[in-house]
């Protein structure tokens, strides 16, 4: 398989899935497209220099997406204010409130730091074990656990008044 065929196959088979991961990271359709596009182009350039990547195309691309996401967030970090303060909420209980809780949780996910969000997406959306997340994020497993734990703590702050995550606190 030559480079062009490989890229074509890559896009055909991995495009949707990559976009879903990118959307979980960015919470923005356009940003997700840009993220995957940039990652694909980086991979293409890399392939031209180094040849075809290992057999696991998807993992290779996912790593590129994560790297690009973290890189872009780093560039932006000087201007963006990331906060762990979540909106005040009312005591809830009704089905409508539970829907609202989940909406709030989605918003809260977006307020996490880039690395926290990446750790949670890889753990709970991609279902990756911590050692693989550590490899992707370039850190130790303990750091992954710390990132996830702190991220969940922020989310829990939001969720507990409505009952989400109460089990965790018992």
């Amino acid at each position, binding site marked *: 398989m030559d480079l062009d065929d490989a890229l074509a196959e890559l896009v055909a088979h991995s495009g949707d899935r990559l976009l879903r991961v990118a959307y979980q990271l960015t919470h923005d359709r356009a940003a997700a497209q840009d993220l995957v*596009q940039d990652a694909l182009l980086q991979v293409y*350039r890399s392939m031209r220099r180094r040849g075809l990547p290992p057999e696991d195309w998807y993992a290779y691309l996912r790593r590129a997406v994560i790297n690009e996401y973290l890189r872009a967030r780093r560039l932006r970090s000087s201007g963006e204010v990331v906060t762990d303060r979540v909106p005040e909420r009312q005591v809830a209980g009704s089905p409508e409130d539970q829907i609202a809780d989940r909406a709030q949780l989605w918003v809260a996910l977006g307020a996490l730091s880039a690395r926290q969000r990446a750790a949670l997406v890889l753990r*709970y959306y991609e279902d990756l074990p911590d050692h693989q997340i550590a490899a992707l994020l370039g850190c130790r497993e303990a750091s992954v656990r710390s990132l996830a734990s702190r991220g969940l703590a922020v989310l829990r702050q939001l969720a507990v008044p409505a009952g989400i*995550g109460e089990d965790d606190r018992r």
Partner: protein
Amino acid sequence: MSGIEDVVRQVMASHDQEAPGAPDLFRALQAAPGPPRRRPKWPGLLVPLAAAAATAAVVAASLGISATFRGHARPAGPGPAAQSHPGPAAQSHSPAPLRRVPRFFAALTRTAAVQVMGGEAAVVRSTLTGRVLATVAPPRPYQIFTWVSAAADDRTFVLAAQQYWPIGSGRAGLPAQNRDNTTPTVFYKLAFDPATNTAKLARLAVPETIPSAQLAGMTVSPDGTRLALDLRRSIQVVTLATGAIRSWAWHGGGWIGNFKPIGQIFSWTADGTTLQFQQWEPGGPAHIRLLDTTAPGTSLASSEIVLTFPNGGAFGLNTLLTPDGTKIITATPQGITEFSARTGNPISSQDQFRDGWQEVLWAGPAGTALVVSDPRGKTTPDGPSNVLGVLTGNTFTPIPHGADESSKIAW
């Protein structure tokens, strides 16, 4: 209630379907240089993509870009038109063709190094000389113009404005509070006076509150009395004198409007009765539809499909219905291509480039004069830059100082 981890899984899964589909990705990939190339994602602010030309070509080829016209599948591309002029159109510097286009045009401009759709100011420029004749900024508290459209009188424009930057991608260095896209969009009429080279803004009465993130484009009718709004799942036409709104809903999948639109998202016939729009299906084709705005009904399903492209890469971001209602014009791999609005068959193609992207930005009454963006500019590391010009009879006349720098522009 389950633990926080389970809830996080559920929340992530519940948003799974909101992710953009692969066709969007393919189209975004085609934004990179290469045949058939598309306008960059965020014009003027792309990172250098030196190796992208081949990428786009590969992706385009891999997708088997094809088009179906009236249900007749074609293996690749729109096929030869009855009149085909392969290769770039001849270039002329005679000003005569420029006089076949409205004398003035409006463009949104920006100064901040952020990736936005829109601009901090709107400029009115002369088509004949390219000179900037007037500049207006949004009245406070509004900071950003997001859309611009032109009536047919060459001096009346409509602008959409909002309070915060509409950030579209992840590299902007703006405070988080400026990323609020939920504030309402407001609309202004821009009246340009060529005698004094002044432009005045007047707030338009659009009674409905439209969150800025919800508005995906707008196009004013040729007589300037009605404003068509793209709300992704519906189209609204507002009668500006009365504020009356008529809505047509789309109940199918996908969305209404094009992908990261430039120029105009809709086009009207000269009599202001028929509206052309794009309807994209998730993971499927894009349809070019015509809506009779005088007919009864509230569903966009009643609109007529005049063209179907199985893949969005087979046509330009803009599709224009000529004011006489006879043709649909767009950029295709064969160049600037005209299709019959009655049969959907290709009529002619001209001004074809191997490298770079093209767009059609304005069409004269029968499509004999067009404003296009062509990759005829200086070569940059990203490929040839684009210039604005008028295409008449397979001859391209550049608009002076016509570097194509704004994705929001209207004649």
